[in-house]
């Protein structure tokens, strides 16, 4: 677990990163030329004011560095703020303190270099599949013919070429998320931010989409930050798994997944690594359960159960 194999299709910087606990990187205002990080989060805190007026901390000093081309998975119990973290990177919300760098420049707002794929399909129901995929390019002001050409290319990439003129409600859940992936890729982002994109799908469809995502990732060389509460999924997909604590979200630990690709969900190595992560996650889940059952009896999942 301590050696990092460059088994994945892209060469990546072998920077010594602390495996457990916080990634302590001496941050400079700008790109660190020796270790070019695509995305760098430093001391990200986010606090909310609830309806009753009390302040509560959602994210607490998150430090994270994602090199170009890496597939990072962020796991944590529900309510740990992992989706919010993606929104911050996407520039859709603003953190209370701390700094997010993208390619060495601080993130100030949304940009098509960082595209989200949302939990529920955020596809536009008033547009056809093709026009959904073309949307980002249209906003960029790309010419119509080029837009159409690229739309077809990306629809082929997700095997949906035949559905260009369908409306979203005519597609199955799995097809919709493939359209979402095509729409995201079509703006040619450097980073894909995926927020539990396969959470609502049945197991078979999810397996297929895992394979497709892995293939698309290796073909396009994008950086992917993938949020999920499913540890198996995280280990199956990620080069690295980052575990967040329950409320406030902190980086509890990081795991490197040095398994050869392509992987499968049923691989015994995946299961073994997942178990390791799960053991640590369990504590956090217990805390989230305790918070949920605060009033009544507190069921507890025993370690190793």
């Amino acid at each position: 677990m301590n050696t990092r194999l460059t088994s994945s299709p892209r060469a990546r910087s072998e920077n010594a990163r602390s495996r457990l606990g916080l990634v302590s990187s001496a941050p400079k205002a700008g790109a660190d030329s020796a270790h070019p990080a695509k995305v760098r989060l430093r001391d990200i805190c986010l606090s909310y004011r609830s309806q009753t007026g009390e302040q509560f901390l959602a994210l607490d000093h998150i430090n994270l560095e994602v090199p170009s081309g890496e597939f990072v998975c962020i796991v944590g119990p529900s309510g740990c703020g992992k989706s919010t973290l993606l929104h911050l990177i996407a520039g859709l919300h603003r953190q209370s303190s701390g700094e997010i760098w993208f390619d060495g420049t601080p993130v100030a707002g949304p940009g098509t270099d960082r595209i989200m794929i949302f939990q529920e399909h955020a596809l536009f129901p008033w547009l056809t599949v093709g026009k959904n995929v073309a949307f980002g390019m249209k906003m960029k002001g790309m010419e119509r013919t080029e837009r159409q050409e690229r739309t077809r290319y990306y629809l082929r990439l997700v095997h949906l070429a035949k559905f260009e003129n369908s409306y979203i409600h005519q597609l199955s859940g799995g097809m919709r998320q493939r359209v979402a992936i095509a729409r995201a890729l079509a703006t040619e982002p450097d980073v894909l931010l995926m927020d539990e994109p396969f959470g609502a799908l049945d197991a078979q469809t999810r397996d297929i989409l895992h394979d497709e995502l892995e293939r698309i990732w290796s073909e396009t060389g994008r950086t992917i930050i993938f949020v999920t509460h499913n540890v198996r999924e995280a280990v199956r997909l990620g080069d690295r798994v980052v575990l967040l604590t329950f409320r406030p979200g902190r980086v509890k630990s990081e795991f490197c997944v040095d398994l050869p690709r392509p992987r499968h969900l049923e691989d015994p190595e995946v299961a073994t690594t997942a178990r390791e992560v799960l053991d640590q996650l369990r504590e956090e889940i217990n805390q989230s359960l305790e918070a949920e059952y605060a009033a009544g009896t507190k069921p507890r999942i025993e370690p190793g159960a």
Partner: protein
Amino acid sequence: MKSSMKRAARFIAFYVALFALWTILALLKIWPPYLFPTPWGVGAALYSGFKDHTYIIAIETSMQRVLIGYAISVVLGMVLGLGVASNKFLEDTVGSLLVSLQSLPSICWWPLALLWFGLSQNAILFVVIMGSLLSVTLAMEDGRKQMPRIYGMAGRNLGAKGFKLFWYVLLPASFPFIVTGLKQGWAFAWRSLIAAEMLYLSLGLGQVLMMGRDLNDMSAVVAVMLLIIAIGYLVDGIVFRGLQRRLQTKWGLIPVS
């Protein structure tokens, strides 16, 4: 298929029965014809009205007014509604004013409109706008609030901002939620127009209706009433049903209302 035929049969049977009742009552001559017109009298009035172009000119004039007034209401209403929906200050101030103004029948603006604009086309337009603006505004406000937030986020994420975000994302996303309000706005605009036209010599359908009264011509009065109903119903049936059907093919089942 079968049930739709059954519905059509019921529809036709009802109107045939209604017409038969009218004919019988007219034939019985319980009331004098200047109080209770006969179907053939109304038919003759319609025929002559169209033949001497009175009704055609009236319909043209009225349609033109209502279209201009309604278009202004829709644009203004959307801007206002969006403003109220996205700004807490506007919601607390303008929002409450709008709701309270809704209890004022639009024709109550007529005296004010007369003093401001004189006896003119603008006075009529003003009443039409005041009649339909509120329902469009409230519908837009509601639509903006009901619209799933995720569309706005996705739009911004894909590089839409400012006017582009409004035009390509927020407006189409809220459309299923505002179409009912737009329809209601149309109905109010049409009613306000006829009311205003009745109070002022103005060539429109409302004036032709009043002319029937002045001439004690009950057949003409009923003929124009039928026209007013028919036009309102046709626009609703053709324009708004068509819009709703288009929405249905795009969105599938529309989530709310």
